[in-house]
């Protein structure tokens, strides 16, 4: 029995599209919900990030619940950065009773990178042991083996970085995540289709659905910054040039052209795509109109 639309579509072999909501720094969430509603015919589920970039914000759990109330399907992102094993397990129980079924488990960025750099980095569990804890909860037990009064049901996912070096290290961890209960993967942003194709060949054996990651380029500077600083991201020179050559008023058009080219290029290699608009939520609909799926 499939417990979410996302799981059902993947099981039926249909191509899946997920997008992402980054909750605001504050309580002004309504514009984000509205943007999500605009594209609901085209998007299967919305990831809600968990204090992305280690910046203190509105939480993922509450935002996921608001999406459900508005008839939209969330993917609850949960990281190991801010909570110990008691709080993580408790939040998974909370997520379940609030109707959340898709959960994406991540390690999380280090606290030093965010807006509270002096905070204590927790990392009590890691992405593998948190997946395992979630699997335990699905079996009616906590991670110490204590019986639960009412268990959870989740469609568990994890992340992988296809262009990370050394890739073997990612693959070993991916295998561990699968053993710990991950049933689908969303990837880091992909800009190099050849590298993505090589990666897909390597992971074919695992038989888990992969949703290729798409990040909309906003400027040439952003591309260069990511190449220097973001792990597993390599924006090719031709895309940087396209963004640099575009007039300011044409940047969105060029950015969407690049993204649609990438989606069209990867759609036959993987089981879906995951769009990370990073604030450009309002262009996701237009992008999806441009691609042939």
């Amino acid at each position, binding site marked *: 029995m499939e417990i979410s639309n996302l799981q059902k579509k993947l099981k039926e072999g249909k191509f899946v599209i997920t997008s992402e909501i980054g909750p605001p720094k504050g309580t002004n969430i309504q514009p984000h919900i509205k943007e999500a509603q605009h594209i609901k015919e085209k998007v299967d589920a919305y990831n809600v990030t968990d204090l992305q970039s280690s910046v203190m914000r509105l939480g993922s759990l509450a935002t996921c619940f608001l999406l459900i109330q508005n008839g939209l399907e969330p993917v609850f992102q949960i990281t*190991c950065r801010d909570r110990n*094993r008691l709080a993580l397990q408790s939040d998974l129980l909370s997520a379940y009773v609030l109707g959340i079924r898709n959960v994406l488990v991540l*390690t*999380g*960025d*280090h606290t*030093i*990178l965010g807006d509270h750099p002096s905070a204590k*980095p927790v*990392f*009590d*569990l*890691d*992405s*593998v*042991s948190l997946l*395992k804890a979630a699997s335990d909860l699905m079996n009616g037990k906590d*991670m110490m083996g204590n019986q639960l009064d009412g268990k959870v049901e989740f469609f568990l996912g994890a*992340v*992988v*970085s296809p262009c*990370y*070096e*050394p890739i*073997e*290290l*990612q693959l*070993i*961890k991916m*295998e*561990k995540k699968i*053993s*710990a209960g991950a049933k689908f993967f969303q990837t*880091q942003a992909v800009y190099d289709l050849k590298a993505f194709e090589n990666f897909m060949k390597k992971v074919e054996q695992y038989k888990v659905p992969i949703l290729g990651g798409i990040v909309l380029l906003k400027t040439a500077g952003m591309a260069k910054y990511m190449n220097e*600083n*973001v*792990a*597993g991201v390599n924006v090719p020179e031709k895309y940087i040039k396209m963004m640099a050559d575009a007039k300011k008023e044409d940047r969105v058009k060029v950015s969407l052209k690049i993204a649609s080219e990438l989606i069209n290029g990867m759609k036959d290699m993987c089981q879906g795509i995951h769009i990370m608009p990073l604030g450009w939520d309002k262009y996701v609909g237009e992008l999806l109109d441009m691609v042939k799926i």
Partner: protein
Amino acid sequence: MIYSELKNIDEILKILKENEISLIICNGCAEACKVSDEKSIKEIELKLKENGKNIIGKLKIDFLCSKNLIVRKVSRNIEILNNSSALLVFSCGIGVQCVSDIIDKPSYPATNTIYLGGFQGLWLGKERCAECGTCYLGITGGICPITFCTKELVNGPCGGAKNGKCEIDKEKDCGWVLIYEKLKKIGKLEILKEYQNPRNYKLLEPSSQLRKKVYYDIDKNEEL
């Protein structure tokens, strides 16, 4: 002083798959806390032999935290080391890391280094021991994931390293990339696939027994 305790023999045998073994024994703190005194070594030797292990050699070094002393001893005993397929190290976590850094053989800790509440002596080399009480060095190629990984991860890296450097500092090596390279070099990469349980933070509260046994020894001696 850095305080360590012997792992039990089952724990040692779980990581020590090789049969041709040399023992590398620290004659410093480890000797003082009786994990590397003659009696302990004899007992472990016996148990290793019972389990089909061949002890090729025993190298006793005054302080394993001194790489100079290790190099000197190693250069005089190259043959013994060449004939060994793995090393079992009786020292704190720093000694194991130093041995592993100098000798390209799988080096396994025979001990767990125990938390004493903070002070662990002076150490100015790159190796660090967090005294976590669950020595991981045997499964990580002798490089400590607790002190070398900024997030203290035990099941492999996060996705944050770029060009082998940590996401928080471009000049800081990613501990897990170092571990990967070392395990690959010594042909032990498959160890990385094993699931590691979450850490036991209970071990970061020294027991009252330990407080009595270790903390106050010095005070008492001074009084005498």
